C-alpha cells in the first residue's frame, strides 16, 4: 500500500514517542525497582509502597502512547 511521506513521518514519530518514553521509564524504574526489592527483603510490608514507587515512572509510557495516538489521529485514519 502506498503511503505518502508525511504519513510515514507521523508514523515514525508515533513509534518514537512510545519507544523513547518506554526506554525512559525503564531507566527510571531500574534504580527504584532494585531499591524497592531491597526494601521488601528487609520488611515485607513494604510491598505496596515499593510497587507504588516502582511504577511511578511508568506513566511516561502512557503519555508517550497518548501522544502516539494523537499523532496517528493526525493522519486521518483510525
Amino acid at each position: 500500500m502506498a503511503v505518502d511521506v508525511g504519513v510515514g513521518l507521523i508514523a515514525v514519530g508515533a513509534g518514537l514517542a512510545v519507544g523513547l518514553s518506554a526506554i525512559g521509564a525503564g531507566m527510571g524504574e531500574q534504580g527504584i525497582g532494585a531499591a524497592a526489592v531491597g526494601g521488601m527483603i528487609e520488611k515485607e510490608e513494604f510491598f505496596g509502597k515499593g510497587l507504588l514507587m516502582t511504577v511511578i515512572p511508568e506513566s511516561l509510557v502512557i503519555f508517550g502512547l497518548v501522544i502516539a495516538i494523537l499523532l496517528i489521529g493526525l493522519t486521518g485514519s483510525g
Partner: protein
Amino acid sequence: MLKPKQVSKITLFGSKKYMKQVIELLYESNVLHIVDFSKKSEEENIFDIGEPFLANEKYSDVLVKLRSLISNLQITGKPAMIRDTAIDSIGKKTQLIYEKAAELFMEKEYYSSLVDVYKKKEVKKYLQNLKLDDEAKSSNLEYFIGFYNGEASKLRDELEKLSSFIKLGNSNNLKIAAVFCNQKHKNAVSQILDKYEFSPIDIPVLKEHFGKLAGTPAQKFMKLDYEGDRANKELEKINGQIKEFADENKDFLLEAEKKLSIEVEKAEAPLKFGTTNNTFLIKGFVPSKNAKKLEKELEEITDGNIAVKIEKPGKHEEVPVIYNHPKIVEPFEAFMDLYSMPSYKEIDPTFFMFLTFPIFFGMMLGDVGYGLITLGLFLYLKKKMPGAKHFLNAFIIASISSILFGAAFGEYFGVEFVPEGLGKTLGFHPETIEHGGIKEVVYPIPHIFSRSHQIDDLLSISILLGIVHILIGLIIGFINVYNNHGFKHAMYEKGGWILIMPSMVWLLLNFLSIITGFIGEIIKTVLPPVPVLGVMFIAGSILVIKGEGIRGFLEVIFLSLLSNIVSYARLMAVGLASLSLAVVVNDLASDMFSNGIVGIIGGILILIIGHTINLVLGIFSPFLHSIRLHYVEFFTKFYTGGGKKFKSFGYKHGGQ
C-alpha cells in the same frame, strides 16, 4: 462497611487476687486487644510492668522441647482438637518422647557422619594404599591422620628422625598426612604438625579403626567399601524409625504444643499489664458490641472486685483496626494489607476497591476465553493453596469480570470474527471494514463494543473512568479531612482540587482532544461554560496553594491532576496490547494451517505457546496496572493508612 468496626477503649483495674481468673476469662472471650503497659503519665508511675506467673518457666521448657521435636521430626499440620489434659502429664510424656528422639537422632548423627567419612573418596583411596611395614605393626604406636597445609618435602624432612612411617598424599587439592610414630615421640611430632596447620580427621569411627590398626596390617581398610554400604543401610533404617516415631507421636505433639502455647501466652499476659503489689491495670480495646457483655462477665467472676471503664477512643489515640465488610468484599482486604491498613479514623476504601478493581482488570484482560482459563486456574489454585484464599478470591472475581467484559467486547482468545460460512449459519450480521484501502466483508461475533475498531471511544471511556475514580478519591479525602480537621481544612486540601478538576476535563476535551466521540458529547453537555471554569480553576488553585504551600503550587502548575487522569489511558493500552498479541498469534497459526499436516502441528504449537505467554502477561499486567491505579492515582487523593491490626488476646482459631 466504609468504616472499620467500632471499638471502645477499656480500662480494667482490680485486685491481684483475681488476676488469674480475669486472664482466663479474657482469653476465653477472645475479644480484647491488650495495649502493652507503659508509663505515660504521672499517675501511671506507681505501676510496674507485671511479672509472668511462676509456672511459666516450666511451661516454656516443655514448650521449647515440643517445638524442637516438631521441627526436627518434620511434623506439620494442626491439632485435631485440644483436650483438657493436665500439664504435668504432658511434661512427663514430652520428656519421654524427647529422650527417645534424642537417642534416635544421636544414632542418626553417628551413621551419617560415618557415611560422610566413606564418601570422602580422597581419604578412602589414600587409606587403602597405606602399607605398614613391620615396625609399624608394633603395639605402642601413635598415629596422626589428617589434613595439613605447607610444603610436603619440608614436612617430611622434619619428621623423618621421629617417625617410622610417613605418608604424604595429595588429591583434589587436599593434602593428607598419615604419620605413625613411637609413643615417646608423640609430643614432638604433634608440635611439628601444628606448624603445618595439621587438622586431624576427627571422626570417632575412624579413630576406632585406627585403634585396632595398631599391630594389624592396613589391609583392614580394604573392607571400607563393605563398611560404607553397611553404614548407608543403617542410616536408612534409622531414618525409617524416626519417621515411624514421628507418625506415632504426631497427634500428641501438635496438641501439646498448642495447649502449652496457650498456657504460656496466659502466663505471660501480666507482662502487658501494669501492676502494684496488690493490684493490676489492663488497658486495651474491645469491639463496642462486645464491651457490655465483657464488663458483666468480669464483674461476675471477680464478685464485683474490679473497676471497668469503657469509653470512646480519644482523637489522637492509636486504635487497632478490625475490617468490617460483607463476605464478598473480604478478599480485597488482602490488597489493602499489601499497601497499609486503613487507620481507625478514616474511610476504609476496601469497598471501592471491590467495585473498581474487577472493572479495571476485566477491561484490560477482557476476553471470554482467557477469562475462563484464569477462572479455572484460580479455582484450582484455591484448592491447592488454602493459605492464599483471600488473594485468589479477589482474582476469581476479577476473572468473572474479564469474562463479562470479553462478552461485551466480543472477544474469544483474540478471535473477533468468524468465517463467512459459520457467520451466515449463526445469523451474524456482516460488516464491511476497510483495511489498508481494501474493503472486506467480515462476520463479527455479536458484541456491544469493539475494542479494536473503537480505539478512540475506548480511550475516552478509560479517561472518563479515571475522572470518576479520582473524583471519588477526592470526595473521600474531603470527608476524611472534614471529619478530622473541619470544613476549612477540607476545603483547602481537597476542595481546591475538586474545583480544579473540571478545567482539566476541559483541557482533555478541547485542547488535547483525548476525549472524543459520544463520550465527548456527553461530557460537553455537563461541563460549565469557559468563564465559569476559569473562575473555578483560579479559586481552586488559590485554595490548594494556601492549603499545601509550595508543594501545592508545584502540583498545580505541573498539572499533576491532568497526568493522574491521563494515566488511566493504560486501561485502553494494556487491553489493546494483549488483544493485538492474541490476534498476531491467531494469524500466524491460521497461516500455517494451510500447509498440510506439518503446518497443522506447527500451528497448534504456535497457538498453545503464544496464548500461554499472552495469558501469563494477561494476568500479571492487568493486575499490576489495576492495583497501581488504585495505589498511586486513587489512594494518594485521600489515604493515610498506617492502621494496626486488632489482635485479640485469646485462642487463635483457624489460620495462625
